[in-house]
């Protein structure tokens, strides 16, 4: 077992799956040369141009062709170079991939995976920083995964590729090389839709996903060190379908819920988590269901002083924990 970065883990998962199953192939802009983040490094050498295919610059066609290829027996993994550039493919994803199975009464299906780097914090400005999970988690028929750790990335990407449904696989780009983690060399999968309790605690449930998991764990440690508040941190990992039971069970235990996400607060995915808790765990709550997220500003301004002002970080999360704990 070796320590790997997340981008290495993604690459390993792709390579493994391509070896395991010749129906798997990757397509996208620049993937042949390894991709701008190197997530497809070496795949063209091993599997050839056909299975690691550079496409013209055209996101709707990339996803549309992936859908078609999946209809004809393959398991395509489409790479969208940045999540911010996926919008031209919105129609293909929402109208086509998500609805094909339902509209045909189960006759046709669309086992594609769409991988894309998302998230802010790298001075990417308003077009290399966006969070897009809220759009897709709202669409029935899609599964949506948000990863920000090497171990999860490998296990969940394998599940995504093997899943018979269309899966949006969102990789937090700031986490690509932020840290290393033990990643087993052997084949393993992590089930889609199952959250991970990354930290046990009794005073409060903190629900999060993506890079914010790391920041939240940091914040929880700091606050516990300061004043003993014990925070349970749940990393959803999959935002659709999400692990309601895990979250509700924890909130029933702690009585308080803090939801942390990087995306704009209004209509972000965390709103769904908050709304569900408010409805289904109401009798257990002894504090307001609280959200910490980015304010409603295009994510994210380029200048690092502006960017830092906008994005959640461990300090802001720690403040939120303290405030809710004091309620």
């Amino acid at each position: 077992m070796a320590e790997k970065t997340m981008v290495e883990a993604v690459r390993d998962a792709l390579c493994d799956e391509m070896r395991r199953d010749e129906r798997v192939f990757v397509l996208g802009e620049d993937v042949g040369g390894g991709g701008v983040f190197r997530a497809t490094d070496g795949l063209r050498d091993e599997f050839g141009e056909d299975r690691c295919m550079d496409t013209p610059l055209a996101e709707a066609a990339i996803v549309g062709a992936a859908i078609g290829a999946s209809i004809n027996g393959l398991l395509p993994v489409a790479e969208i170079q940045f999540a911010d550039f996926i919008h031209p493919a919105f129609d293909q994803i929402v109208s086509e991939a998500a609805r094909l199975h339902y509209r045909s009464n189960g006759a046709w299906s669309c086992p594609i995976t769409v991988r894309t780097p998302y998230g802010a914090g790298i001075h990417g400005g308003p077009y290399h920083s966006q969070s897009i999970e809220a759009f897709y988690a709202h669409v029935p028929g899609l599964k949506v995964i948000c990863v920000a750790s090497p171990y999860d990335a490998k296990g969940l990407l394998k599940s995504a590729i093997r899943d018979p449904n269309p899966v949006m696989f969102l990789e937090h780009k700031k986490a690509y090389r932020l840290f290393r983690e033990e990643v087993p060399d052997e084949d393993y999968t992590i089930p889609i839709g199952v959250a991970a309790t990354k930290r046990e605690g009794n005073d409060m449930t903190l629900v999060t996903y993506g890079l914010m998991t790391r920041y939240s764990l940091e914040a929880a440690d700091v606050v516990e060190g300061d004043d003993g508040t014990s925070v349970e941190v749940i990393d959803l990992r999959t935002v659709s379908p999400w692990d309601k039971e895990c979250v509700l069970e924890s909130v029933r235990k702690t009585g308080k819920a803090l939801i942390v996400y990087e995306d704009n607060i209004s209509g972000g995915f965390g709103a769904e988590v908050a709304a569900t808790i408010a409805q289904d765990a109401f009798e257990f709550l002894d504090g307001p269901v609280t959200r910490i997220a980015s304010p409603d500003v295009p994510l994210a301004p380029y200048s690092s002083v502006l960017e830092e002002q906008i994005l959640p970080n461990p300090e802001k999360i720690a403040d939120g924990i303290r405030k809710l704990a004091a309620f």
Partner: protein
Amino acid sequence: MVSVSDVPGAQGLSKDQLRELYYKMFLARSVGERERMLNRMGKGPFAVTGEGHEATQVGTAFAMTPGKDWALTYYRDIGVALTLGMTPRDLLLAHLGRAESIESGGRNMPSHFSSVDLRIVSGSAPVATQVPHAVGIALASKLRGLDEVAVAYFGDGAASVGVVHESMNLAGVHRLAVIFVCENNQYAISVPASKQAAITDLSIRAQGYGFPGVTVDGNDVLAVYSAAKEAVERARNGDGPTFIEAKTYRLVPHTSDDDDRRYRSREEVEEWEKKGPLIRFRTWLEENDVASASEIDEIEAKAMAEIDAATEYAEAAPTPDPATAMRHVFVEEE
């Protein structure tokens, strides 16, 4: 196995095949008429049909190998669906939103053709979205080493959508076995050709993607068949895509919700009715001694009988069980 024909100008089709062609065209016309009638009777809330497009639809589909080649149709393609092997019963079950409909079990609008066995891929209503699917299917055929052909059908309005450009470009780069069939009926609902594009023949766009484009008389079934046959051969041989633009005319309103008198004169419609594909082919069949008037009447009667039986069956078939409404959002695990 195409039998060699001795009928001059028949593009190598035998008399039986020529009669079959007419049968499918008449069937398509009459299923459309039946659907519009059922709609007027209040039995189906919506009808979208293709009267006038029969030569284009049947002529192209006749060049395909059903169950091997792939069809990505749009809502007007009754003739494609029937030629490839869907039945009037299939279409009328869909028209009435019946549980048994193989198109969608009542989930999709009617005329959103689908048959897994016949490789007619379930379509949606936003136009042109099916075009990249054809490209992806052909890409998979290439990767898998199969000599299937994928045919994408769309209208002159749909041709303006960006993803058509993206798809043709991708197909051109990889020389994929795709045929782009543009059924140019000169209107997108009320918007006439002159407001849809500054050019007359949309097929010249193929040059911009590095493959041939042809414009054919879409009301001449043999001309259409000939162009399609050539395109299928080219695709099957690994020589890449073809764009076929078939110039035709929709003889009926856009859908049951449309009133086409708002945007085109009755004279114009009548003019095109005279040039209609059925009447033209019927005359040709008679003049070339492929079928006599009474033989053609028989063909038509057979089609009508099939449609009547299908109507009766479909009307009696049960509507979906409401309890199933939530099924098939995701693939059900065994």
